[in-house]
């Protein structure tokens, strides 16, 4: 729309704001090249199949095969349910512990706060390979310190080769992952807690709300949006997980596929393993399903939860 400013007689065009495009360009280009194009490439790959050496368009046939074939689908559902347990343990253990640690750290009477904060956060910056290897060694029945430590307190009978038993392996790995990543919810919630203005807390104190009650009634509602963000980050990270399982249990995700999650299933299918040759199309099908599962989870969160969260601005 043209606006003629009175008096001057000049025509003011709305400025084309080129700088926006210029500033966005690097991020958009890089993101498109390394994220969006491969994503669509993967989805495209999942619609094709190699028939007699040729890539042939088969529509959703790969998805039908993956979910319809008795063996493949049982592997898929096993991986999905293991993945859900993996996620559930993170939600039930990692995030409450993260909140607890943050609450303790935000207490101004605690000494050596910075030291604790750093110590708890350090595992997060370690590589999966180191974490997996160290824990495998700690829990090793032969050279590990776990059996010896239990022996010292007379509880040797409680020791089990946790990583080698179907009933414990997945939980053990989940807890290792919790140990590694508990620093992230702790940091985010810690930041949210210390940004709560003093006057609100003082007002609460005037009304006689102190201690635990203050945490439940005042602080927790104020940090709920942060907890929501942490949940969704955990969800995305867990359903993309692969490294820890691969490092500790190998691509076959033993014992007896009890630690097989979508990431390891995808790896075995896409790249092949030992004598099994890789199947890029079926692998891409699994990758696409993983994307859809994560997308669905994020959508549910955004539409059903995020919009109902009440935000307080100070």
């Amino acid at each position, binding site marked *: 729309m043209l606006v003629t400013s009175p008096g001057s007689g000049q025509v003011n065009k709305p400025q084309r704001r080129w700088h926006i495009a210029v500033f966005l360009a690097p991020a958009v280009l890089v993101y498109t090249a390394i994220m969006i194009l491969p994503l669509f490439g993967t989805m495209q790959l999942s619609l094709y199949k190699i028939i007699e050496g040729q890539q042939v368009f088969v529509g959703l046939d790969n998805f039908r095969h993956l979910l319809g074939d008795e063996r493949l689908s049982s592997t898929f559902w096993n991986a999905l349910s293991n993945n859900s347990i993996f996620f559930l343990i993170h939600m039930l253990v990692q995030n409450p512990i993260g909140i607890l640690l943050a609450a303790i750290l935000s207490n101004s009477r605690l000494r050596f706060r910075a030291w604790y904060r750093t110590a708890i956060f350090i595992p997060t910056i370690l590589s999966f390979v180191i974490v997996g290897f160290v824990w495998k060694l700690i829990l090793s029945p032969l050279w590990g310190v776990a059996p010896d430590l239990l022996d010292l307190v007379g509880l040797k009978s409680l020791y089990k*080769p946790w990583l080698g038993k179907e009933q414990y392996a997945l939980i053990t790995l989940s807890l290792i992952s919790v140990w590694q990543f508990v620093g992230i919810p702790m940091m985010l919630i810690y930041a949210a807690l210390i940004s709560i203005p003093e006057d609100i807390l003082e007002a609460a104190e005037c009304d006689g709300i102190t201690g635990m009650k203050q945490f439940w009634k005042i602080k927790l509602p104020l940090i709920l949006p942060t907890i929501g963000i942490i949940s969704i980050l955990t969800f995305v990270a867990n359903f993309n997980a692969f490294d820890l399982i691969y490092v500790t249990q190998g691509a076959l995700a033993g014992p007896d596929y009890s630690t097989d999650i979508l990431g390891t299933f995808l790896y075995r299918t896409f790249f092949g393993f030992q004598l099994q040759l890789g199947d890029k199309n079926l692998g891409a099908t699994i990758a696409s399903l993983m994307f859809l599962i994560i997308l669905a989870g994020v959508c549910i969160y955004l539409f059903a939860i995020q919009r109902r969260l009440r935000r307080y601005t100070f």
Partner: protein
Amino acid sequence: MNTTNKVNKTASLLATSMIGLSALGLSAGVYAQDAELTIESWRNDDLSIWQDKIIPAFEAKHPGIKVTFAPSAPAEYNAVLNSKLEAGSAGDLITCRPFDASLALYDQGYLASLADLPGMGNFSDVAKSAWITDDGKNPFCVPMASVIHGFIYNKDAFAELGLSVPETEADFFAALDKIKEQGDYIPMSMGTSDQWEAATMGYQNIGPNYWKGEEGRLGLIDGSQSLTDAQWVAPYEQLAKWGAYLGDGYEAQTYPDSQNLFTLGRAAIYPAGSWEITGFNANADFELGAFIPPVAAAGNECYISDHTDIGIGMNAKSENADAAKTFLNWVASAEFASLYANALPGFFPLSNDPVTLEDPLAQEFISWREKCNSTIRSTYQILSRGTPNLENETWNASANVIKGTESPADAAKRLQDGLASWYKP
């Protein structure tokens, strides 16, 4: 100006003709004197052995041919080789992985058929089986080496406990019981954490005695036998008894753990593959012995897994085909077999010529070829082409059976059902 131009032109003309001449001279020289061969391989560990021993021995006999050994990292080899072959820049000689990986290269026309190579006559059918078309007509790699399965044991421990080498199943378990009872040693060093140990050193190690080696393996391929037959379930029934003799927490014991447990002298018996020989010789400070997988009853014929592991073939597009064939013929000779086997004890030559090995443990292993019938791992040829992949499933089933979480019959049935779902003999 003009003159300078002219001078320049003449000079450049001269220069060009000189380059042309020298290029001509060079290429003429190559044709007259040396054919250069390059070997693609994943055995970068063996680089010095090739450069210092094998290649000089060949070049001394064949002065017209120069050979370069150009290995890449084992994990990258297949991918690197495929892209080089596609681009037409691969070497003249190609080290072959066993079975389908190399068969695929032959089918795509990258590897030449060696049906008319005279040296191929030095190899048995079992030796050739890893690098031959399904119809058995076109071999495409010269077999280089195999690995043999058996049990390595701590001789000192056996002497201490007054044990003799077990020959039958009953002896074997009696020995294990005795070691367990005495308590100083873990009877057997193996873990199920990595799964392949259970399948490779367990199932494929003892199995051939039950399914009678090649007879059973080929029966499985032609459909006359099934994994649920008694002879295929029997090895699982044996494995089911092993769990009791493995170390505490063997469920979480990995392959390096097992090796260390044995070389530290804490375990008496190690279900092995011959590739362990070099490492064990270096790390164990006690005397090592080896014994054949025990047979069901005394006097039974014995069968061993003598698994073809590495071969060498010719790039179909090689410009030095004749020289490459000369080299391959030499690889098929007794001279190469002896050189290679002594440089790498535990990787045994596959040719029919008798080879003298210097390492006593390696000698013990290779002597079994005289006494027993050889076969290869049952799951490697043809049967692992589809999904569910029989080899991977065998890893899983063997580990389950040892831990007792799946019965031998159930495991066998699951494998057979999985195989039957895609394989029609």
